[in-house]
């Protein structure tokens, strides 16, 4: 196949007398295919050199470990077994863990999408001065100059039983008993996630929106479109790529995280990763590896589905 393509290129390039237009067309058409040649491998080699030791090899090890037998003391016996997967798929626990993790992922996704979308919209369409818009955009990143963990933990004194929110509500006479659901609850987990991850929505949506030609909006206005119609038929469809990219970030981070769940739920909720972390804590590597592989497949499937709705390559090349 490779030779075939090279032939096409060489004939295309060497045949004189071919009209210039056709030569260009041919070059254009064949150039992407031609990259799979030797030069192409050279181009991708830096990436491959990084991906093989830091991505492919570890995953390979995890996959192998997931099929091994466990001696209960951190040892893996080189016997092929499907028992680890059998126990993952037969346990009701797996379902509950996925239900709880997916619940966090979806709630966080909705929260970050709503907040992120409107912040991006405001920055792009309402702040007239582009310098100011970029300034405000950078301001959004300020909280990210400190660590994730600090940002999460700072919610605790705010939401606690004797925390700021409860004391304000009580002293204002709105409530008489402190609201306990504020901290160590699913609510607290989602608040912390939304706080941590909204920026991952803002950036790609901001990026997508700033490419919308403002004249399109003006034209729509002139043609008598309402604000809602502009939003529905112009802004949202044209920001779709940004939304999809942001969703990939948010969903994959939440699916793979356990620390926020552990701390903000006060240990009251579990996630897929927190459960497999407990296995690793007592050196039960094969069962942990099996549930890691299952999680990987689920997340990859999720991302593949999102990518079907958007052409990321187009987004980046634009």
């Amino acid at each position, binding site marked *: 196949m490779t030779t075939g393509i090279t032939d096409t290129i060489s004939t295309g390039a060497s045949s004189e007398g071919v009209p210039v237009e056709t030569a260009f067309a041919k070059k254009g058409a064949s150039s992407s295919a031609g990259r799979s040649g030797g030069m192409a491998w050279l181009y991708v080699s830096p990436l491959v050199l990084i991906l093989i030791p830091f991505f492919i090899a570890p995953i390979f090890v995890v996959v192998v470990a997931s099929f091994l037998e*466990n001696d*209960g*003391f*951190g*040892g893996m016996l080189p016997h092929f077994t499907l028992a680890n997967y059998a*126990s993952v798929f037969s*346990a009701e*626990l797996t379902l*509950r*863990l996925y239900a*709880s993790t997916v619940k966090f992922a979806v709630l966080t996704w909705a929260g970050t999408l709503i907040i992120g979308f409107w912040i991006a919209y405001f920055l792009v369409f309402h702040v007239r001065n582009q310098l100011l818009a970029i300034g405000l955009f950078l301001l959004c990143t300020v909280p990210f100059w400190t660590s994730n963990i600090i940002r999460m933990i700072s919610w*605790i*004194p705010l939401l*606690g*039983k*004797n*925390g700021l929110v409860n004391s304000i509500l009580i002293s204002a006479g709105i409530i008489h008993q402190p609201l*306990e659901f504020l*901290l*160590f609850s699913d609510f607290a987990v989602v608040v912390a996630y939304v706080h941590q991850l909204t920026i991952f929505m803002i950036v790609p949506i901001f990026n997508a929106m700033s490419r919308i030609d403002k004249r399109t909006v003006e034209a729509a206005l002139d043609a008598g479109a309402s604000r809602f119609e502009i939003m529905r038929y112009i802004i949202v469809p044209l920001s779709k790529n940004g939304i999809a990219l942001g969703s990939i970030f948010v969903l994959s981070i939440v699916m793979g995280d356990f620390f926020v769940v*552990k*701390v903000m739920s*006060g*240990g*009251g*909720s*579990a996630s897929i990763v*927190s*459960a497999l*972390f*407990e*296995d*690793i*804590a*007592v*050196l*039960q590597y094969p*069962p942990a590896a099996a549930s890691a592989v299952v999680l990987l497949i689920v997340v990859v499937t999720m991302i593949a589905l999102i990518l079907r709705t958007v052409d990321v390559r187009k987004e980046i090349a634009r």
Partner: protein
Amino acid sequence: MKEKLEASDPTPESKTEATVTDSGVDVSRRAVLKSAAALAGVAGTQAITGFPLIWAQDIKNIELRHVGVSYSVVKAIGDQASKDLGFKVTMQNLDTSAAINRFVTQPNTVDIADVEGWQAKLATKRGVLQGIEVKKIKEFENILPIFTKGEFSGKVVSRQGISPYEAMYISKPDATELHEGVTPWATFLPQVYNADSMGYRPDLIKKEITEWKELINPAYKGKAAILDVPAIGIMDAALCFESAGEIKYANKGNMTKSEIDFTINRLIELKKQGQFRATWTTFDQSVQLMAAGEVIIQSMWSPAVAAVRVKGMPCIYAPVNIKNGKEGYRGWCNGMALMKHLSGKKLDAAYEYLNWYLSGWQGGFVARYGYYSPVPSTAKKFLTANEWDYWYEGKPATAEILDPYGVPMEKPGAKRDGGSFIERVTNISCWNTLMDEAQYMNKRWNDFKAA
């Protein structure tokens, strides 16, 4: 004071002789022969205690990496050791699970592994440790028999869970199975331990708490917390259910599947009824929960209770002495293990370090935050009479009590909860563990978490 104590100590040689022969008797004739050799070894070790200059030159470039959990592997102790020994000791902290994972998967990045009994068992199985030659440990005969013989003042110490004694011996330096009974080879050398119980707020709970069942008392619904480290959290829960008379475990530290099921199902029930405000995994979390008023009773560690009090909040460490075969503290003990790769001068340095560790400075240091040394006789030399009486004897302080870093902790007249050291350790009813059914237990614990 200090001199007097030293003088009153029996000479190390005579004591060594007694113990080594003792241990030889119940092992084998070969061991007796070995212990004769051991005596020669002791004499040799003693000859070099002055750290001759040549040695000092040789060991200057040695660096020992002592790796373990933060409450056991403390930088200040490593710094003092480096100063006293003339070579560098680096302390590295990891949480319990990261530590055992590192010992097992990257054994060569560690020189001294700080392990609990159950971790010593795991690490021994994996063959990453080398046996500690008991005769090279100068203070070995002064280590409390709780650890070395599994008894205390003639009484057998509880064997529920993995007691330090159970995990302590192997038959030969490269054995991968533990050995029941005293041998010349130890898996780990106990260095710090305590007895865990519950902490509570005396201003909000108007009665004295001496039973574990109070943790599941509906009166404290939504104001209780439990430890979320599966292997030991389940034992705290077991102590509660046993205390409430709901079940009698054959061995809380090594439950059967049906005992695990019972315990977890009850925990899930309690969780659904809203008994637990939260669960905690780290020292700081437990302090925060209590200090912020989120909970008024929870399973807790002694220094964490002290930390709450330093924040100006009243907090009591519940004395849960054994009563009617129920209650009791959950004991734990961290010890130092030698990694297999140590050899030559580095191994010699490691032995010097182990010997330094038991020589008293560390015992005095950890006493000031409420933990105990396995060799109280040496720790005593590094404590004032007031400190000794307060921390070890359970007597009221006659002067202000300072923490290891010199910060005032308790006022004169304050008394330590739980009484004297002997009262505490003799009331340990189970030890931190890793059950045979650990995999099943973990899965069920996750059920509790996800419920």
